[in-house]
């Protein structure tokens, strides 16, 4: 141990704020990045699952071909 006491360890002879600020920012950013990466991986798995379930539901209903264009005017009520 390079320090005599815990308080000396925290103070670091006056350099404590600099050292601890660096380490704090380092760990906070690294943790945020790690958690963020894991969460976005989870999110994509979830969205895939929802997509597949939606597809499964839809394929129960008979697959119908997309309707062809009629260019019929849409009636918009004028009141």
């Amino acid at each position: 141990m390079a320090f005599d006491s815990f308080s000396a360890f925290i103070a670091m002879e006056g350099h404590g704020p600099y050292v601890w600020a660096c380490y704090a920012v380092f760990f906070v950013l690294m943790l945020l990045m790690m958690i963020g990466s894991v969460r976005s991986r989870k999110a994509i798995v979830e969205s895939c699952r929802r997509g597949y379930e939606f597809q499964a539901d839809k394929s129960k209903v008979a697959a119908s071909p997309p309707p062809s264009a009629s260019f019929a005017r849409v009636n918009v009520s004028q009141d």
Partner: protein
Amino acid sequence: MWQFFHKLGSPKWFFGISTRFMPWLLAGGVILLMAGVVWGLAFAPEDYLQGNSYRIIFIHVPTAFMAQSVYIMMASAALVTLVWRMKLADVFVKAVAPVGLVLTFLALFTGAVWGKPTWGTWWIWDARLTSMLILMFLYGGVIALDRAINDEKSAARAVAVLVLVGVVNIPIIKYSVEWWNTLHQPATFKLTEKPSMPAEMWVPLLLSVLGLYLIFGWLACVRMQTEILSREQRTRWVREFVMKGRV
């Protein structure tokens, strides 16, 4: 050999193998990094010149080192993207560019904070800090270009060109910034490790560099898997993985 190469390019194969490696990477990385940091903070001897502020070195050097090597790795992957059109290579570039940006920012931040007790000022236009700042611009450009192009294949290839152009420029930038620095500030106090660093200092430093390397590997795997899942949604293996939880 070619079969191996081909396999290496298969997202499915990568997904399986990386899932197996990831826990080890994370555990090893955290243990090494914590060992290095605790040793460096609490047990390494005080530096006779800079006092305790030098203890920032145990995260400054790893982040600065990683920031540069991540760019080199991206450039290698970019070359593979352009020459062999390997899917995994551009997934890698896209996945790790933000990590590189964060690491570069951390290197800059710790460098600046270290500067305050050492030089008495938060920022000096020191050669290392300046070229680190430019490296951060390069990362920013890569991410901005990737975001701006909708089509993912075009994005991957355009980014690969940009990364390669950047990597050709990195040595030139480094050299010119150093030259510029000597021109304007002939004798500054530099953030260099002294040549005869005692083992109690460099061993923890080595540990934290290795630890951060492994954590980067883990991060790269997680982010590449995310990217692969979103790209390969329509394949059978992703469906099986999502619905049944195995590859």
